[in-house]
């Protein structure tokens, strides 16, 4: 009797443990659904919290960044919203709807419209890392075909030339797109919700060079301690605190 009751309690405990594990496994997926539900209920603060949590538990995705951007926009944090939307567009570069949304948001913030050119979009088709690897592989393949095939396969000159030419073209095109992709990774935006001062030197006491509107785009030229040196689209160059400017990609 005792052994039967022990067995029963052991089975119950096992079932409970399995259910708990299943619940834990399913728990992360609820963050995205929670965020969506909170957004639809117009609880944007909770939506921001849920989407941010989902970024950590489920990993980054274009849809998460996009929805997080809209939550920020609805709660009035337009600079942060613009950054998140641009990040989402980097993750899904050929989503034309999001390109339109970025321009809508920029016009709402009083920023100049600047949709990305076709070559910039092409450069975003792959990450900078993938472009570099593709370039390296293509150039090495072209090299080996060009130099080694005459020795080991001298009779197949036509195939050799075609192979090496193709690899060379792929390598050069991907090299150009790698450069564009690298330039794209150095861009960022002012994420402060108020105007930020661009300074002549990386110090708070340095004279001001310009006042940047929230959401202004710039390219990182240099960095020193807590400051980035950036160049804006309208050619202002100066130093801004790292707290106020965030790059769109982390190229480590």
């Amino acid at each position, binding site marked *: 009797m005792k052994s039967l009751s022990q067995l029963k309690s052991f089975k119950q405990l096992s079932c409970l443990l399995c259910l708990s594990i299943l619940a834990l496994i399913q728990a992360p997926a609820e963050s995205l659904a929670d965020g969506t539900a909170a957004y639809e209920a117009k609880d944007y603060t909770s939506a921001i919290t849920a989407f941010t949590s989902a970024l950590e538990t489920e990993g980054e995705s274009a*849809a998460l960044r996009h929805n997080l951007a809209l939550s920020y*926009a609805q709660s009035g944090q337009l600079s942060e919203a613009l950054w998140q939307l641009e990040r989402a567009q980097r*993750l899904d570069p050929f989503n034309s709807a999001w390109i*339109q*949304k970025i321009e809508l948001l920029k016009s*709402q913030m009083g920023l100049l419209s600047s949709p990305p050119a076709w070559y910039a979009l092409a450069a975003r088709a792959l990450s900078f890392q993938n472009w570099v690897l593709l370039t390296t592989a293509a150039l090495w393949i072209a090299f080996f075909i060009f130099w080694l095939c005459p020795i080991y396969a001298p009779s197949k000159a036509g195939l050799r030339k075609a192979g090496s030419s193709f690899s060379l073209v792929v390598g050069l095109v991907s090299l150009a797109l790698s450069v564009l992709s690298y330039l794209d990774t150095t861009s960022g935006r002012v994420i402060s919700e108020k105007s930020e001062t661009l300074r002549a030197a990386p110090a708070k006491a340095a004279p001001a060079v310009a006042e940047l509107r929230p959401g202004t785009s710039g390219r990182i030229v240099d960095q020193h301690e807590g400051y980035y040196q950036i160049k804006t689209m309208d050619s202002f160059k100066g130093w801004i605190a790292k707290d106020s400017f965030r790059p769109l990609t982390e190229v480590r």
Partner: protein
Amino acid sequence: MYRSTLYFFIFACFTLSAQAAITVRAYFDPPKIALGDNARYVVEIEESSTQSMPSPERVTTLPVPTIRGLEFRNGRTSSSQQTRIINMQSEYAITQSLSIDAIPSEVTTYSIPEYTLDYKGTTYSVNSTRLEVVKRSAEAAPSANELIFLKADLPESLYLGQSIQIQLKLYISESVQLRGLNAYERRADGFTLSQKLPEETIERLETINGQRYRVVTWPLQLTPIRSGPQAIDFQFTVSAQLPQNQQSGRDLYGRNSPFGSSLFDNFFGQTEQFNIYTEPATIEVKSLPTEGKPSSFSGAIGDFDMQVFADSNETTVGEPIMLSIKLSGTGNFDRISGPRFPEDANWRHYKPESSFEAKDDYGLRGSKRFDYVFIPQNSGQLSLPGVRFGFFDPETKEYLELTSPPIEVTVAPSKTQVSAPPSVNQTKPNQPSSENSRSNNIPIAISPEAILFTLDYQPKPAKSIDGNPLRQKWFWGINGALVLVSITGYGFICKRRHYRNSPEFALRQSAKSEFRLTLKTARDAINRSDTDAFFRAAQQLIRLQLTIRTGRNLQAAGSAEIAGLLQRAGISDPAQSKLNALSKKADAQRFSGATTAGIGQSEMEASFQMLITHLKALK
């Protein structure tokens, strides 16, 4: 019945005896003061018991009758406990003191009549008491109120919502040593005022009635929030060392002493904590007049100037343009919000961003700027709306309205239309298909904002866009290895090509392969015991080795030539003679028909080993 009555009586006596004895006493401390000094009105409630220490009931109000000319302020309570043992009998007592500052306004005797006080459910009578206020002697030492006092520069009237700066001044006589400012309180319910005193103060010296004072000034910002007469006063609790009272005809200022004030006056002075107050004041807060109030008025009170400008007078449809309004002057900037613009079919605009630049520490002087984003919806010659800003000037007591005319803007047609993405319903109704020329569907127009704030409900798999292989060791390691392989391979290939193009190289290579074959032939001859074939092969091996060594074709060389070459090769004489002997035997057998039969297999083997050994020396 008699017993029950007796028991009740005993119980009552017992209860009464167990209850604490309570006495209430009131008095002035001191009972006689000079005009300008303050006294304390004290009510003491003493409870005593022989059983245990009584627990007092906290008294929070004192129903003191109002006396004309005598102001009461700053009520406070304290208590003390005492235990006495008399004739082995313990007696416990606790005294609760309620004291309040009494400030007389004239020379007279103030009398507080008897009144009642409820305490622990019983009504007690509070005795009457008197305070005698006499005229201050000309030679009397100044009172504490004359040595340290508080003043506030307040206006008589203000308008509701008007912000001004006032000054709270603490006067400290030079004979007083201020030890600390313990507390600050203010009564200003009808105003907004700082909760805490600002840290920055202004200090200066001032002489009043021949006495020098150190004046510490705190600037405060005051804004009335209720209309009508509003009371305002301030109180400090300070710790200060006041000078000792006059003794033996000498006063504080040494007027009766040829030596001036004595050092011992200050040496025996005590540090006291006491409250100082400003005189009770009332400010008449007036409501803003309704006559002449412009529609653009939204609560601004002060004196302002306005500048209006746009960052450009040319744009394209959909491209934003910024309209800035800058208000400068003095007033309640914290209550000013940007002017509102009516809806316009030609423009879409948003809430402005504001920024304030103060020119003083209180935010009353400065300039406030509002930046509006206007987005043109149509092309052509459009106008940014004119600006109207109304405010009330308390100096002139009238409303003023500042206006700015519309700003002309040239709007070019848009190069790229910002339209709805293809996944969203278009504003135009769908074209009916050829099969069905009529449609019952009703198109719904969607605003750009609705498009913007639509969530993504179809998440795709994530991909990483971060990372830089140029900073990874593995990337450079693999490329470095490929470079090394390329360099090594290239060197190898170049060397081979060089040799292939050289005739000497080809001859040597041919001789080497021939040498291997001839070596095999010699072995076979030994095995067959074919001495003729063996000697022919042996001679050929010598020729081939010399060919490999010299790079010349010596496969047809005679014995004499072979002997000369062997000599030049620098090998030892015994080796030379043995190799020459082999060569000559082969020639003899070939040309003269001499037979080498009879040479055993073992001898041939020995000759072969000797041959191999010496040929190695030729390499």
